[in-house]
C-alpha cells in the first residue's frame, strides 16, 4: 500500500510538471533599471537590521506582459528574495507601487507615505500594489488612507509572489480599463513593507536622517524627503545616465518648518519612446 501511495504521488507531480509548460505571455513592455541606484536621490541608506540584504531594494528590471485577459507585472531585484518574516508569498521586506498612465488626466499625488508627486502630464490613472501583505490587509489600508477616487483606482493582485529575484502579480486587463499596455506610461516605486506604518502611511517604511534598525537613512526626519529607494528613469534601458535621472527626479529641498519646498516629482517612462 505504501509503495502504491508513493507511485501515485510521483505520478501526480509529473502531471503537474507537464501542465505547467503552457503559460507563456504574448505581449507587453519591458524596462531595465541600473544596479546600485537603490539610494533614492543618491544619499539613502538601508536600515541596519540584518534582514535588509544588500540589493533588496535595487530594482533591475520591470516587465509587463499581457497574458490572455490578465496583465502580469514583474519587478526584478538585485538579490535573491527571502521571507524572513514568514509572510507566505516568498518575500517580506519589499513593497512595490506601480503607477500607470493609461490615458488622460489622473492623480498627481503619490501613494501615502512615499512623499512624491507626479509631474504635469505624468499623472497616474491606475496604481498596482505588489505587497507581501494579504490583499485584504492592503485593501483596508487603501480604504483608510487614500481618498475615495484614488483608492478606487488602486488594483491589488489576488496573488503576489516572490520567486528567485522577481516579485510578480497579475490583474485583469479590464480592471485597467482595457487598451494596449505596451503603449502606457509606467513608474515603479520601490519601498519596503512596513507592518507598523506611521498613521498616514500606506504600509511604507520611513526615511530618516540616520538609518535605524528598521528605518532608511540619508534623508530627513520630516516628511520633506521622498520615501522611495529606487524608481524607473527614462528611457528605462538600464543605462548609467538613468542613475543621474533618478537622482534628479528625487532631489528635494525643504522649508525651515520641515515641509517640502521642491523636488520629488516623478515622470512616467514609456517603452516605446
Amino acid at each position: 500500500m505504501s509503495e502504491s501511495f508513493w507511485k501515485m504521488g510521483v505520478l501526480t507531480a509529473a502531471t503537474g510538471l507537464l501542465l505547467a509548460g503552457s503559460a507563456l505571455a504574448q505581449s507587453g513592455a519591458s524596462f531595465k533599471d541600473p544596479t546600485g541606484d537603490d539610494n533614492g536621490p543618491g544619499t539613502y541608506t538601508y536600515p541596519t537590521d540584518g534582514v535588509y540584504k544588500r540589493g533588496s531594494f535595487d530594482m533591475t528590471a520591470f516587465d509587463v506582459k499581457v497574458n490572455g485577459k490578465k496583465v502580469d507585472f514583474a519587478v526584478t531585484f538585485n538579490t535573491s528574495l527571502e521571507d524572513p518574516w514568514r509572510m507566505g508569498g516568498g518575500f517580506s521586506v519589499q513593497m512595490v507601487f506601480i503607477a500607470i498612465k493609461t490615458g488622460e488626466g489622473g492623480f498627481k499625488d503619490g501613494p501615502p507615505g512615499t512623499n512624491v508627486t507626479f509631474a504635469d502630464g505624468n499623472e497616474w490613472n491606475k496604481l498596482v500594489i505588489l505587497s507581501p501583505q494579504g490583499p485584504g490587509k492592503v485593501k483596508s489600508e487603501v480604504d483608510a488612507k487614500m481618498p475615495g477616487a484614488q483608492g478606487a483606482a488602486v488594483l491589488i493582485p489576488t496573488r503576489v509572489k516572490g520567486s528567485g529575484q522577481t516579485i510578480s502579480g497579475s490583474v485583469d486587463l479590464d480592471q485597467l480599463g482595457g487598451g494596449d499596455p505596451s503603449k502606457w506610461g509606467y513608474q515603479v516605486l520601490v519601498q519596503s513593507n512596513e507592518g507598523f506604518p506611521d498613521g498616514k502611511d500606506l504600509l511604507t517604511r520611513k526615511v530618516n536622517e540616520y538609518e535605524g534598525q528598521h528605518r532608511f537613512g540619508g534623508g530627513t526626519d520630516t516628511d520633506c524627503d521622498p520615501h522611495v529607494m529606487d524608481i524607473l528613469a527614462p528611457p528605462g534601458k538600464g543605462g548609467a545616465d538613468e542613475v543621474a535621472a533618478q537622482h534628479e527626479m528625487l532631489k528635494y529641498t525643504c522649508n525651515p518648518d520641515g515641509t517640502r519646498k521642491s523636488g520629488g516629482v516623478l515622470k512616467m517612462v514609456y517603452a516605446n519612446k
Partner: protein
Amino acid sequence: MKFSRRFAIALLAGAATMAVMAAVAAAPAHAVDGQTMIITGEDYTKWLWGNQHTDGSVYNFTTVPGEGYGDNGQGTEIDLLIASHPSKNVEVTGRIQSRFNQNQWTNYAGFGGRNPALENPPAGPCLGGACGEFDPRSNEYIKLRGLTARFTPGFKWLDAATIGSTDLGMFDPYTIGKIRYIDRDNAKAVLFQGPVFTRKVTYDLIRVSLPRLFAGPNFNTGTYAGQDGAYGLQLKVTPSSFFDATGILERVRDLEVSATDTGNNALDNGRSLASRFKNDVYGAKFGIHPSSKFDFRGLYYYSTADANPKYDTPTSFGLSGFSPALAGKVSDPLYKANVDLNDPFGVGLSFNVEYFNIGAQYTSILAARREVDVLLTEGHDGAWVFPGPDNSAFGVFAGNPTRIGYGGWEGPAQQVATLSVDNEFTDFEEPMAETVIGWKGITVAPNWTLGDLDLSGEYTRIDYNTNWQAWGDASRGITDSIYPNFESDAGVSSYRNAYAPFQDKKTNIAILRGKYLLNVGKGVDVFGKVKYIGETDKRMNDARFLPYQAGDCPGGGAACHNNTNNYSAGHSSADLYTNPPVITVNGITGYQWKPFDSLSDDDRDLNYKLFQLGAGYQLTGNLYGSVTYERYNVDLKDGNTAFQAYNLHSMASGTNDKNKLILYAHYTFGAAEFGANYEYNWGTFTPDFGGGFVTQYADAGIAHDFGVPVGSPGFKGRFGGWNSLDKRDFKQNRMKVFMKVRF
C-alpha cells in the same frame, strides 16, 4: 585580561556619557510644549483547543520547569506602543505589554487562588492559573517590555547612540543574534553606530547586559549578575558595490565575586571579581558581487569558551545534561560559503549552493536561538520533535507525556548555530528551531520559474564534526561528558540534541517542491512537496568499546558473567549498557533485554518520506483559505532492546505512518485580522525492537502509569521504564484562532 575588560567597560561608559552629553549640548533647545507623543496599541486574543485537554498556560509548549503548557484556553494581551520626539535629536520609544501566560479568560482577571508564599510545605508550581492573583503569571500583570532612547547628535563619527531595549538585529545570528524570549526586545544595551572616516566604513559598538535567565553554563549566570555583559564591535567596509566585508568581535563575560577574596577585612578595600564564564568570538564575512547573476559570500568565525568550575559550572554533564555551554575550556570555528547563480541561462533557472562547517565546540552564548535560519537546507521537520513516537522526551518513565503532541510543529525546522535553541512558549503553527552545532556539509538548491509554475528543490549531504567514539575522548567515562546532550539523539529527530556518546552519522536530504497557479476563478494556489531523508548512524563502530567481553552472556537461560570490557583504564561502556537479568515469563526463561554484544545493537537507519499536497484560494477580497495534507512514512531502526534509547527514552524502532490535515483561514476586517488554523493528525506506530529478550506483560501498575492495557506485551528496561510492543494508534485534533486589532 582584567585590563581588557576594565578598559572595555571604561571605554563604553565614557563614550556613552560623552556622546549623550555632547548630543544634549549640541541639540538646539526645544520646548517640550507641542511635542507629540504617539500611542498606538494592539489587542491580541487567541483561542486554543485540542484533544490533549491540557490547560497549564495559553501556550502549546514549554520545557521550562515550573511553567505550564496547554492546548486549551483563551487569552488576551494588550501591547501599547509609545513613541515621541522630545527634541530634534532625541527619540524615545517604549512598549508596555501584558502576557497570555496563565491568564485564561476563565481566570476572570485572577482573583483568589493559592498563595504559594503561605504554603508550608510548598504545594508545587503554579499552573493553569491556580495561584490566581498571587502569581503575576495569572493576575493579568502588565510589564515594561521595551524602552529605548535614541540620540542622533549629528557628529561626523556618530550617527546614533541607542540606550535601552533592542532585539540585536544589527549583528548576525552566529555571534550576537536576535534574542527572543517571549518578547523580541528584552535585551538592554548601549549601542553606538556611525562612520569611520568615510561612510564606506561604518561601525556598530555595543554593550549588552547578559540575560541571567539562560546565558551561561546550566542556563544561568551565577549569583552575581550586575556586571555580566557582552561587548560587540562590528566594522563594515563597503569600498564598492563589487565587494563588502565585515569584521566582528564579541566578548562575553559572566563575572562573580571572587571566592578567594575573603577574610582580612576584605570588604574594606572592595572585592575582587573572577570570571565564571568567558566566551570570545571573532571573525569576518565578506561578499563578492560582480553581477546580478553571480554572488559569492563567505564567513569565518572562531570561538573560545571557558567555564570556570570554581563558580558552580559543571565539569561533566553525565550522560544527559542541559546547558547552552560546554564544560571547561573549548574552542572551535564556524565557516560557511554561499554561491548564488541567478538565472544564468536566462530561462528562470537559478542555483544556490552552500558549504557549511560548524564546529562541535563552536560557542556563541548570544547567537540567535530561533526565528532565523542560518543554513540553506530545510533540515528536519517540526512534526518530529523529541525521541518518542508521540514526541515525548523521557517517555519511557511514567509522568512524562508529550507536550506539543503527536503532530509536533508545522513546517520544516529553522536552523540555529547554538545549543541554546529555543522553542519555548510557542504554539503548534509556529516554526520549530533545531540546532546545527557540529553539522558540516553541502546544499545544492535549484529553483526554476516556468510561467505560473515554481519549482524548487534541494540536495543536502550532512556529515558531522560530532562523529566520534566515547564522546571523542576515550580517557573519560561514558557517563562523564563535557557535552550536554539534552534529550539525546534517539528517535526520528530531537531538536536540541547535538551530541551522542557514540556517533558515526551521515544524512542525505532530497526535496522537490512545486507551486502552481491554476487558472480557475480567481486562481487556485496548488502546492506540494516530496521530501526524503536518509540517515544512517552506526553509533558504536569499534569493538573495543563493547561493554562486556565476548561471550559474556551465553544465553539458554544462563546468567551473564558481567566481565566488563574496558576501552581505557577504568572505563567501560558497561556503565551505560549493563547486562540483563534472567527472567521467566509464562514459562519462558531468558534475558530481560538483549545483551549489548554486537556493534549492530545500536545501529540507526532512518528512511523518511514526506508527501505534501495543498491548495489555497482567495475566497473573497478579505478571506483566504487553504487546505494541506501531509503524509509521513518513516521507517526507523533505532537500535534494539540492548540500546534502549540510552535507557532514557521511549524506543522508536519501527514503522511510523503519520498524516496531517491542515485547514487555514485568514480574514481581514479593517484594522482587525483574524486567523484560524485547524490540524488533525492521525497515524500509527508499529514497533520492531528486534529479538533476544523475553516479552513481559503489563500489570495493573504499568497499565495505570503508561496508559496501556493490562496484559499487553512489552519489556522493562534497565531503569524499570516500560516500552510497549503494541501497535499504537494516534489521533490529535487541535486548533488555534487569533484576533489582532491595531488601534
